[in-house]
């Protein structure tokens, strides 16, 4: 009798074996290579790197393969690996104005210095299934030559930030550098209210779906901040690091980033004249949806600082930042799968007792 919870060890072994089989699928179909995932599922790789907070395309591709394409699971795998790595310090601020862009658009101006560059985007595809992709035949018009854009090199004209152009006229708030050491949410528990660097970190690795919904809610009246997409750019920036033993800047590599600067209305208050305010989004890899949503939420979270009456979910820092992480959320939601029969038993006894008391009371009336 009573064998319900016995044999956990054997059950786990069998489950792991089944999982490995399911992951591989039909063995008559060739196995996916890490290179294939890295090259052909590149936006999935980007998302896993961004929310996994680790810039490593190969490991992100491996995580996607191991997680059978479940991106939140892949993000978790990458995070659990990342947490074992030593931290050497933090880089110099990246100069996104000097980005080697493969895409750069502004919705605020018809033309901007450096020009509008459409780059690779789904935006103007007609969302029709391309049945030609059903087979792996070579496609006419798709060159095997390396992609232009980031590789185009030093001929790129200067592309100053659109918001900085507004800044020259004092039309948008200045964004002074504090020079202070940025927070690190991977090392320090949050203490609310948090500073902006901490907030931006949390948003940058927050769940895309969560930020998308929150950003969307601000557009539908829950904390509206009248945004314009001042600029969205995607490309490569150099990362520079100052090793303490050297004391000068050394370039250690390039990363692909998507940056979104939202320009938002501000009517002014007291003796402050009306001007535009900023919402900022920055993510690893190519992730425009996420960068834009992040910029909306960042601006919404500045409500208190800008003297606006916060009252919507997207304006509530503790609410947003405490629930943005999908590794946290996924774990805690799914922990309900763990046995709770001790607690449930306690509840059973309590409910039975309450019903007994209610019956007695009912009989007494």
């Amino acid at each position: 009798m009573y064998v319900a919870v016995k044999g956990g060890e054997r059950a786990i072994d069998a489950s792991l074996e089944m999982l490995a089989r399911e992951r591989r699928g039909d063995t008559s179909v060739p196995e996916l290579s890490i290179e294939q995932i890295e090259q052909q599922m590149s936006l999935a790789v980007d998302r896993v790197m961004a929310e996994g907070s680790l810039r490593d395309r190969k490991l992100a591709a491996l995580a996607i393969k191991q997680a059978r394409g479940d991106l939140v699971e892949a993000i978790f795998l990458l995070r659990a690996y990342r947490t074992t790595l030593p931290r050497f310090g933090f880089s110099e601020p990246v100069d996104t104005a000097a980005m080697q862009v493969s895409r750069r658009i502004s919705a605020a101006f018809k033309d901007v210095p450096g020009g509008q560059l459409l780059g690779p985007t789904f935006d103007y595809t007609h969302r029709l299934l391309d049945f030609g992709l059903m087979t792996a035949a070579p496609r006419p018009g798709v060159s095997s030559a390396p992609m232009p854009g980031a590789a185009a090199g030093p001929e790129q004209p200067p592309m100053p930030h659109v918001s900085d152009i507004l800044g020259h006229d004092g039309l948008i708030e200045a964004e002074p550098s504090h020079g202070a050491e940025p927070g690190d949410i991977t090392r320090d528990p949050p203490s609310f209210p948090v500073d902006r660097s901490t907030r931006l970190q949390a948003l940058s690795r927050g769940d895309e779906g969560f930020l998308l919904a929150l950003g969307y809610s601000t557009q539908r009246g829950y904390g509206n901040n009248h945004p314009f997409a001042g600029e969205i750019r995607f490309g490569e920036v150099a990362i520079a690091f100052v090793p303490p033993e050297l004391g000068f800047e050394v370039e250690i590599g390039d990363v692909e980033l998507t940056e979104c600067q939202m320009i938002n209305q501000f009517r002014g208050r007291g003796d402050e004249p009306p001007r535009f305010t900023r919402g900022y989004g920055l993510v690893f890899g190519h992730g425009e949806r996420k960068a834009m949503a992040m910029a909306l939420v960042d601006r919404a979270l500045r409500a208190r600082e800008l003297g606006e009456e916060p009252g919507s979910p997207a304006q509530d820092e503790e609410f947003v930042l405490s629930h943005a992480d999908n590794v946290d959320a996924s774990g805690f939601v799914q922990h309900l799968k763990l046995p709770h029969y001790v607690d449930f038993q306690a509840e059973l006894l309590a409910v039975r007792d309450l019903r007994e008391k209610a019956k007695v009371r009912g009989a007494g009336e």
Partner: protein
Amino acid sequence: MTTATAPAGYNFAYLDEGTKRMIRRAILKAIAIPGYQVPFGSREMPLAYGWGTGGMQVTAAVIGASDRLKVIDQGADDTTNAVSIRRFFARTAGVATTERTAEATIIQTRHRIPERPLREGQVLVYQVPMPEPLRFIEPRESETRKMHALVEYGAMHVRLYEDIAAHGRITTAYGYPVLVNGRYVMSPSPIPKFDNPKMDMMPALQLFGAGREKRIYAVPPYTPVRSLDFDDHPFAIERSDQPCALCGSTDTYLDEVVVDDQGGRVFVCSDSDHCGERQEAGRAAPARA
């Protein structure tokens, strides 16, 4: 009992020594201020948040090569998550493991305190999902921290009183709040309130780890732990009116097991080691009564 060697590429007990030092500092502070929730830089663990990552980080920070580890979930050593966590430490720390409460130096637990009284030198590590006892009264961390600092526990007493007014008793059956050392209201983690009295003046060190919420707290040995109550409604524990179907125990916490779809039930000890020991003892010295 199993022993294993740590896999290449990982430090003893998985976490790097810098992280362990950070966690040990938090633990020391927690012991110095019984019941106070110490924020710490919780790390991602290779187990999901909500599945014991806080307890695992505490265990990883205090475990040594000569320790003997026991892991239980719902009181049992063979529930899947307990198996998984025990394997994790057998694999990453190569430590000896045991199912015997008496033999363990560290016991990591979810939702129960073992029936056998713990002794000095043992460490009981609780896995904690929601460390803040005031969370369901006040969702904001910034507020609850103030309430603790100012000993502002009136809202908690009002909540308990409302239960009595509405139902004639306090309906909280698990995770029943306690007052530690006369100062901090603390969540005992979701143990049944049946286990609450065991925390009071316990000779073993009690450590609590909440990974996702990034908090560690502690009850040092021989510290008073009182379950919140009222003079006219004293704290009382729930008891099953049946004995354990396996060992006949009448003073242990029992799980109710549904055996058919006709309302058939049996009750068995939730503490599998304690129940097994009693059954062995029963076989060695057949029932006299």
